[in-house]
Each structure stands twice: as C-alpha cells, then as structure tokens.
C-alpha cells in the first residue's frame, strides 16, 4: 500500500511581475510504499523542500495530484497521521522544550495525561529530559533539531517528513537520530527524508530518489542506483597471467595496481564469454565482483551529466 503517491505533481513559481517562471517541481510521479524509509537527494534548489511543502499543503500545486496514506492531500484531517520536521524550523523562543511539545501536541488534538506522558517519553527519546523546562532560546542547534524530531513524533504519526533532520547535529547525535529512525521503521512507520548527507541516507534508506531542477532523475534502492552494470573486478590466481590479452572491441580490460583487473563489457553475456575463455585456458578465477559506486559518486556523476545536458 502506498504511503505517498504523486501524479504529475508540479509547482511553477511566477515572479512578482509575472515575467519569469521557475519550475520548482516538474510533473513528479512517485510512489512510496508504507513502512519504508525513502531518501530524497538533490542539490540546493532541486525541489526537495517544495515537494514536501506541496504534500503538506503548505504550498499548493500548479497542477497534478497527490495522496498521502490513501487520502487526498486537501483533507487537513489527514495531518493527524503525519509528522513534519521542517528545515530551519522556529519555535516560540519564550516557550520551554516541554511547552513547545505541549503546544504542537494540542494542535494535533492530544490532550491531558496522554499528552504529558507522550512529552516525557519523547524528551527521553531525544535526550532532552533535563532540558524540559529550559527555554528553547537557550538550546543549541543540535538540541533544536532533536526537539524538532520530538515535535514531529508528538502525534505518533504514520508518515513522517524530515527535512535535513541531522543538520547541525554532532556525529553521536546523528547516530542517535539514525537509530530512532530505524526504530520507527521497525514499527511500520513511513519516513520521507530530505538530506544532503548522502552517506547517512545510504545507511538507513530503503529507496532513494534523486531530484534535480524539479525533475526526478532516478529512483530505486541504493544498490540499484550504485551498481555499475557493465563493470566487474576480476582477480585470478596466477598474478603473472595477463588478462589484458582478451581485450577486444566488446570488452576493455585494464590492470589495477592491486593486481586485479577491471573489465568493462557491453553486457553480461560478454562477461560470461570471458569466464569461459579463462576456464578453457585453465586460469583459476579467485573473485568476480560487480563494481559499485558509492551513493556520493553516483550522485555527483548523475548531477554533472544532467548539468551538461547529457541524457543518462
């Protein structure tokens, strides 16, 4: 079942004098299953925050439709099941951490003892129990992020949108937030994560989308996105044996410093032909590994290609 479903969702901003149009989101079709962590990646201005704001009706689409948890996004009651941590969120500085949670808890229709209990639980979860009565103006950036996360969870949401949740948080705090997100996932919560921190996204997400200039360039699991389908690393027992002799127009073989070989082939059949040849020549194969990029390498490569206007 889909937690998020968009159809041709688009947002065009028109400047004050109407002479310039900025396409912030371009006919986005996206389906995110329930109970998964989805990471949306993209450079600044890619449209990541625009997408979240559209889904939460903070801004309105120019055209296209969207549904969250099988409900049309126009229905504001839907937000009872949604949590949101915006980027650069601001809380009333005169409120304490506990009062901030109370405020947003009440707006989420939670009251009385249930709310008090939930506030204590969440402050404990984000390690802010000792700061419950301190005014938020005394909080550090990292503490504000953790309070923001607690705020996003106050209504025990089914679907959680987090926009740069680890921004300004130290490495230990980031690990704690990652653990919280994984724990939420284990409770079948759906998490939509906007982040610049690719290594972090790589660690926790089930699926990743890459957005640039309002266009969804790629979407899939981290493995699907980082696999280099036509490149293998091959290592043979006899280090003296020169594999490069098999190079031809369909297969480029280069030797690396480690003694292994990089094999670039057109398709998997060519790779299998190489294996046949090696076995016929009684070469003992120690290892064949499908080469992978890191998410960061893939991301940079994809965005660079997009910037140069190369269709991938």
């Amino acid at each position, binding site marked *: 079942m889909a937690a998020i479903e968009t159809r041709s969702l688009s947002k065009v901003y028109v400047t004050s004098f109407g002479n310039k149009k900025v396409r912030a989101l371009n006919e986005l079709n996206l389906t995110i299953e329930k109970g998964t962590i989805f990471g949306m990646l993209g450079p600044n201005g890619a449209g990541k925050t625009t997408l979240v704001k559209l889904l939460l009706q903070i801004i309105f689409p120019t055209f296209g439709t969207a549904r969250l948890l099988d409900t049309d996004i126009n229905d504001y009651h839907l937000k009872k099941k949604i949590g949101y941590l915006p980027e650069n969120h*601001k809380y*009333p500085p*005169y409120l304490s951490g506990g009062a901030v949670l109370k405020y947003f808890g009440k707006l989420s229709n939670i009251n009385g003892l249930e709310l008090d209990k939930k506030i204590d639980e969440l402050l404990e979860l984000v390690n802010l129990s000792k700061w419950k009565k301190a005014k938020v103006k005394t909080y550090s950036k990292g503490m504000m992020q953790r309070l923001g996360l607690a*705020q996003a969870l106050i209504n025990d949401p089914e679907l959680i949108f987090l926009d740069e949740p680890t921004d300004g948080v130290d490495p230990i705090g980031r690990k704690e937030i990652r653990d919280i997100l994984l724990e939420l996932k284990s409770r079948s919560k759906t998490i939509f994560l906007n982040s610049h921190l690719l290594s972090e996204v790589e660690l926790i997400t089930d699926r990743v989308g890459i957005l640039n200039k309002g266009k969804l360039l790629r979407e899939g699991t981290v493995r699907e996105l980082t696999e280099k389908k036509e490149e293998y690393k091959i290592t043979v027992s006899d280090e003296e044996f020169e594999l490069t002799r098999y190079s031809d127009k369909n297969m480029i073989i280069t030797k690396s410093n480690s003694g292994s070989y990089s094999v670039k082939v057109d398709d998997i059949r060519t790779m299998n032909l190489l294996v046949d040849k090696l076995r016929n020549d009684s070469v003992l194969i120690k290892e064949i590994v499908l080469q992978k990029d890191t998410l960061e390498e893939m991301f940079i490569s994809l965005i660079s290609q997009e910037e140069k206007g190369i269709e991938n």
Partner: protein
Amino acid sequence: MNNILTIVKFTLAEALARKVFLFFAAITLLVLLGTLLVIGLVDLETLMGITKATEQKQLMGEIVSSIELLIVNPLANLGLLLAIFSSASFIPVMLEKGNIDLLLSKPISRTQLLIGKYCGVVLFVFLNILLFVFGIWLIISIKFGYWDASFLTLSLIITYTFAILYALILFFGVITKSSIPGMMLAYLIFLILSPLLLLYKDKLNEFISSEIIKTFLDGLYFIIPQTAELMGSIMIDLAAGKGITNFQSILTSLLFLIIFLVFSVLLFKRKDF
C-alpha cells in the same frame, strides 16, 4: 473550536512573553496611580454640596461619568495607538518561514489558525482595556460613592474599535507578511480619515457644492470604519448610560470588519508559504 482555543491561549502566552502585557499593565498602573492622585485633590464636599443643592442624583451620575470620560477618552485613544503598534507584528511573526510551516503541518485548518490568532490578539487587548477601564471606574466610584456599571461597557467599544482596525492589519499582514502597511493604514484611518470624514459629515457638508465630490465623500464615509464616532459620541453615550444611540456607525464598521476578515481568510487559504 479546540484548535482556535489553543491558538488563542498561546497568543496570550506570546503577548505575555513579549512583555506586551507587562508594558500595558505598567502604563495602566501609572495611569491609575495618577488618577488616584488627581481624584484625591478633588474637593468632594463642594461637589456633594452642588449635588445636594440640586437634589438630583442624575447630576451626580453626570459628574461622575464626565470625570471618568475625561480620563478614559484621551487615554483610550492613546492606548489604542499603542495597542495597534504592539500587536501589529503578531501576524508577520506567525507567517515567518519555519514557524508557519510547522503550524500548517498540524491538523488545523487555515481558517481556524488565522481566526484563532486574530481572536487571541483582540482578547489580549480587551483584557488590557478592561483592566484600565475597570481601574478608573473603581477609583472614581469609591471616591464618589456612586456606582454605575454602564461605564464598564466602554471597554467593549474600545476593543471593538481595535478589532475593526486589526482586521485591516490582519489583511495586509497576510498579503505582505509585514506589519508596516496595515499599521500605517490603521493609523491613517484612526487619526486622519475617520475624524476628517466625521468633520465633513457634521460641519463641512454644506460648504461643498460639487455633487460628485459630495457623493464620493458620502460613499467614503460609509466605507471607512467610523472610528471617530465609536471613540467619540458613542463612547460618551455609553459612559452616560444612554446605551448605543448610533447603530449606523456600529454596523457599517462591523461590515468593514467582516469584509476584511473574510478576505484575509480567503487569501490565507490559498497562499503559499
């Protein structure tokens, strides 16, 4: 309704935290102390003598309400200017990025959010005005031993005037996300347009020969909220216990309030943040 109450409650908390309440309470206290001092100087025996001589309780009432009005009227006008100044930023602050995003992500309709904020600000101004009017009334009533609660209704008419002007501030706050344009227009109406239109209606009407200009000014008189009447003749009548004698000013101003509130809500419901 619960959502509106929550917003109202936290708007009051915001006013408290921003020391707006404290500021108004301090001013009220100063005014009350000043009133106590001045009233203490009034020779009650002479006044009572006059009253006894005339044997008219009604005259006593008129004297008391005149004194009350003498103190409250100029201070209420000044207080209204201060109230507009101190509350105009509530809307732009709510609409700031990072703040409005959070509010709109909660299960609260945009209408509830805006109306809750509006009611919260009006309520906080009402509480301040009530404290001020009640204080003056209490001091003077104790001094003269004459108790007429009709004077307390002044707090309602002053708040009503504020609510009308704040609807305008709300509207421009939603459009511009700034407090300045709405505040300037509210001051323009309160200090210049409404008094001038009242002057035109009462005195200058007969001196204008052009029918076009007359029609234009007549139209303007009914469009612009009649704050000069509300804070003038209507307030005097209420203080004197005569009740509301001029419903036209109340109703045309109410229409202005409703129109600006409705347009504010309609704009807010479709605005991107």
